[in-house]
C-alpha cells in the first residue's frame, strides 16, 4: 500500500503544476485585467475614476508584466517563501485573508456535513428497508423537494421571512457587536444562533442527494443472498442490515468522500454570498469576478491540492473498505 501511495504522491506534482498554470490562465480569461474591471465597476456605479492614480498602481500589481512573468512571480513566491502574493482588492497578503476566512468555513462545512449525514443516513436506510411504505414516499418526496428548490430561493425566502416574522436579521455569522470581539461563550452562542440558517439551507440539497443514492445502493444490496444467509444464522434484523448491506452501500460515498476535503475550503458560494457569510466562498467569487488573480489563484491552488489529496484519500479509503479492490485480484 505504501508504494501505491508513494507513486501517487509523485504523480501529484505534475498534476498540480498543470492545474496551477491553467487555473492562473483561466482567471485572466475574462476581458481586461484587475484595474480595467475596477474602472468599469466604478464607472457603472457613477463613482469618480482617477485614471492617473490607478495607472500608478499598475506597476505595483505587476499587471503590465507578461503572463509567464506574473505566474513565475506567484509560483516562486509560494514554493520558496510560502508567500501567496497580495490581494489587490484588500491590499493584504493572501495568506491573511484565507487564514481569516478558513476557520468559519470549516466550522460551517463540518456542521453542514454532520447534519446532512446524521439526517440522510437514517432516512435513506429506513426508506430502503421499508420500500414503498408511506415513510419511504414521504422521505423521498421531502428529499426531492430539498433537491428541487434552488438554494438561493430558500436563502432569500428564509431571510425575508425571518425579517418580516421576527424582525431578526440572519445575515453574517455574528451579530454586529460580536463581530470582532474576542472568543467567549457569548460569541459562541451568537455563532450558533446564526449558524443554523446556512446549515439548514446547504443541508437540504445535500441530504436529498445522499438519501437518493443511499436508497438506490441499499436496494441493490438488500436482495443479495448473503443477507438471507446472515439472517439464517440468527442475526438481528437491524444489526444485520447495518453490518452487511450498509457497509457495501457506503462504497460510492467513499469514492466521493475524498472530495469533502476541498469542499471544506471552497465552501458554498451563492448562499454564502446572499447571507454575507465571512467564508471563503464569497471571497473566491469576488476575487474571480474582479480578477484579483493572486487571491483567486491561491484559493484555487489550495482547493486543487486538497482535491488531489482527496482523490488519493478516496482511493485509499475505497481499498481499505472494499477488499475486492484492495486485493486487486486480476
Amino acid at each position, binding site marked *: 500500500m505504501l508504494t501505491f501511495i508513494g507513486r501517487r504522491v509523485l504523480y501529484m506534482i505534475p498534476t498540480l503544476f498543470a492545474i496551477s498554470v491553467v487555473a492562473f490562465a483561466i482567471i485572466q480569461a*475574462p*476581458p*481586461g485585467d484587475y484595474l*480595467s*474591471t*475596477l474602472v*468599469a*465597476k466604478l*464607472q*457603472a*456605479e*457613477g*463613482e*469618480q475614476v*482617477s485614471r*492617473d*492614480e*490607478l*495607472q*500608478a*498602481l499598475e*506597476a*505595483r500589481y505587476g499587471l503590465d508584466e507578461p503572463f509567464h512573468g506574473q505566474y513565475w512571480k506567484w509560483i516562486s513566491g509560494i514554493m520558496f517563501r510560502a508567500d501567496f502574493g497580495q490581494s489587490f*482588492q*484588500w*491590499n*493584504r497578503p493572501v495568506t491573511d485573508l484565507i487564514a*481569516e476566512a478558513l476557520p468559519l468555513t470549516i466550522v460551517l462545512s*463540518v456542521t453542514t456535513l*454532520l447534519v446532512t449525514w446524521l439526517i440522510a*443516513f437514517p432516512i435513506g436506510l429506513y426508506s430502503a428497508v421499508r420500500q414503498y411504505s408511506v415513510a419511504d414516499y414521504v422521505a423521498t418526496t421531502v428529499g426531492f423537494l430539498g433537491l428541487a428548490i434552488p438554494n438561493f430561493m430558500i436563502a432569500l425566502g428564509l*431571510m425575508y421571512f425571518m*425579517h418580516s416574522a421576527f424582525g431578526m*436579521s440572519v445575515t*453574517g455569522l*455574528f451579530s*454586529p*457587536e*460580536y*463581530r*470582532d*470581539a*474576542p*472568543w*467567549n*461563550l*457569548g*460569541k459562541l*452562542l451568537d455563532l450558533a444562533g446564526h449558524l443554523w440558517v446556512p446549515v439548514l439551507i446547504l443541508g437540504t440539497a445535500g441530504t436529498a442527494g445522499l438519501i437518493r443514492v443511499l436508497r438506490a445502493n441499499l436496494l441493490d444490496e438488500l436482495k443479495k443472498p448473503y443477507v438471507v444467509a446472515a439472517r439464517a444464522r440468527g442475526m438481528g434484523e437491524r*444489526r444485520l442490515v*447495518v453490518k452487511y448491506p450498509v*457497509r457495501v452501500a*457506503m462504497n460510492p460515498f467513499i469514492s466521493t468522500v475524498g472530495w469533502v476535503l476541498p469542499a471544506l475550503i471552497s465552501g458554498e458560494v451563492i448562499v454564502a*454570498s*446572499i*447571507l*454575507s457569510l*465571512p467564508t471563503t466562498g*464569497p471571497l473566491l467569487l*469576488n476575487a474571480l469576478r474582479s480578477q484579483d488573480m493572486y487571491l483567486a489563484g491561491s484559493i484555487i491552488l489550495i482547493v486543487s491540492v486538497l482535491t488531489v489529496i482527496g482523490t488519493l484519500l478516496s482511493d485509499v479509503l475505497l481499498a481499505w473498505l472494499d477488499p475486492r479492490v484492495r486485493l486487486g485480484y486480476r
Partner: protein
Amino acid sequence: MDSVIDRRRFLAAGGLVAVAAGIPGCGFFSTDPGTDAGDSSLDEDARESPQLSERVEKGELPPLEQRLPAAPMVIHPVERAGVYGGQWRNALIGSSTTRLHYTLAYENLVRWNLDWDELVPNVAESFEVSDDATRYVLHLRAGMKWSDGEPFTADDIVFAYNNIVLDERVTPNVARTFTSGGVPAELERLDDQTVAFTFAGPQALFLEDIASQPSNVLTRIPKHYFERFHEDFNADADGAAKDAGFPGWIDFLTSSTNVSGTYWQQPDIPRLHAWVPTSGLGDGQRLVFERNPYYWKTDPDGRQLPYVDSVAFDIVNDEASLLLQVMQGDIDLMDRHVNTTENRPVLSREQEEAGFRFFGLVSDKINTMTIILNLTCADEVKREIFNNKDFRIGLSHAINREEIIATVHAGQGVPRQVAPSEGSDFYDEQMATQYTEYDVDLANEHLDEAGYTDRDSSGIRLGPDGNPIRFQIDASTGAGKPELIDSLELVVNYWREVGVDMRINPVDQTLFAERRDNNQNDGMVWDGDGGVDVMMVPYYYVPTFTAAGWATQWTAWYASGGESGETPPEPTRRQMELYDELKTRTDLGERVELMREVVAIARDEFYLIGISSALPGYGVVHNRFRNMVGETFFATNFPYPGATNPEQYFIDPEST
C-alpha cells in the same frame, strides 16, 4: 456493538465538544461582547466631546485651545446645534474603498457649497486667483494640526506636490488637474501658511477640479510621516518601507498615498478628517472610525466638531441583506445599492416601524436611457447609416416615450432628449424636447428622406449596401441598471415597426467597457452624466472623454491633439475649440457663454437619442440622525455625503 456507523458519529460529536471546550481564555464563560457603545452626555455647554475632556484631564491631550487652529472653520448646522456622542451605523458592499473617501475624506483645500454652485474655503482659509487664471495663491490656517497633533503647514503641501505628484517614480504621469498644455504647474512656498501655484498657460477650472475630487492628494500627505519613506529625505527609505511590510520605498509611497491603494489599510497615517480609522479595512467584517481630537472645525458656538463619536462600517456581500438591514432600521444613512425605484415600495412600507425618513437626491444623470449609435463605428456601412441625421431623427420619432415612462419608470419623468436638465442654467427647451413626439408616419418620412426607402421581404429597410439595416446595441449586465434592458426591449419593437432591425446584446460589465473603448461595438445604451454639472461633465455634448463611447475615434483625435484617431466633422471640431477656450477663461460669465455655444451645436447635430428625464433619486436616513439636508445632489463631481458636512450630523438620543 462496534459497528462502523456509531463509532464515526461518536468521534465527530466528541471532536466538536473538544473544539468548543478547548477555546482558551479565562473570561471564556462571560457573554459580554466587550465593545461598549459610546454613552452620549447631555452637558449642553461643553465645547468639546466628553470623551476628549476626560483625556485632557488625564493629560493625554492638550486642552482644546491648543488643539484648534487660530481661526477654526465654522460650520453652520442644518437644523440645530448638535449633541456629542453616538455611533453612525454605515455599511460597505465588498471591499470598495471609494465609499470611504466619499464619506470621510472630503477635506480638500477648497470645497463646494451645499447648493453646488459656489466654491468655499476649507483647509485653505482664503485664496486669490490671477486675472489670466495662471496663478493661484492659497492661505492656510495658522495653528492647524494633523490628527497626531503635528502642525499642518505649507511644507506638507510642498512635499505632497513636489515629492509625490511630480516625482514620476511615485506617480508615473501627473494628473491633468495640475497641468496646462501638458506642462505641470510650479509651486512656490511664500511662508509657513501660504503657497502659490503658477501654470504655464491659463487653467480656469483648477480649483473647481480640486473641489470636485472626493479626496485631493494635496491635503492628505503629512510630510513628517512620509518623508522617512522617501529616498530624497532618508537614505535608508527602502529599509523603512521593508519594516512596514512593503518591498521598497517606491512601492510604499505609490500604494499608501493612493486612496485606491492601501491608504485605508494604514490607520497610523495622520489625517485632517473628522474621524480617523481604528483598524485597517479588511481586518474582519467591521471598520470603526473614531473622532479626530485635533479636528479644526467648530460649530457657530465654538464647540469642536464632529458631534458623532464614531462611524462603523459593516462589510456586507449582497444588496438583499443590506436592504433588509436598512428595512430594520439598523443603518443610519444609505444612498447606494438599495435606493432604487424598484425597492421604493418596500422601503416606504417599513418607514414608520423601522423609524427612517426619505431625503431627495437630485440626479446629475442626463437621461434615463441614452441610446448611443457609434458614430465612428468600425463597420463603414453602419457608420454611414448612423451619421445620417435624418436616420437618427426617424428612429427618435418612432419611440413611444410615454409608454416607456409608464411601464419601466412607474410613471416618473417626462419625454426628454439628451440635454441639460431643467435645474441647470443651460436648460434649452427646444433641445430637451426636439423629435420626442411619438409619430410613426413622421418617423417613416425621415427614414425615407435618409434614403433607405426600399425594404426586404420581412419589412426591414435596406441600407446603402443593399443589405437590411441590422445592428446590435450593447447593454451592460451586472451594472445594477436593469431598467436599461427593459426600456431597450420596448425600443426593439418600436424600431421594427419602422423597418429597422436592432438586437440587444447583453454583455458583462468589463467586456462592455472594453468593446466601447476599443471601438468594437455598433452602439450601446447608458444613462449618462452631465445633466446638471454641464460644464465639468461635457462629454455627452462634445466627445472629449472615451467613457462616453459615442465617437471614440474623434475623442482620440482630440486627446492626442490630432496625431491619432480620426478628424471629427467641422461642427464637432468647433465644439472642441470652444471648450478648450472655455478652460482658459477665469470669468464664470464668459465660460457659461462658451458652454452655451457648445450645447447649441450639440442640439443642432442631434448626436444622441434620449428617452425621458432623469428620475429624482432618494436616500434613506434614520429619524435619530439629525442635521441631514432635505435634498442634495447625486453626481460624480459632487462628493456627497462628504459635501454635506457629515461632521455636523448628530444623533438625537431622545428619538432613537
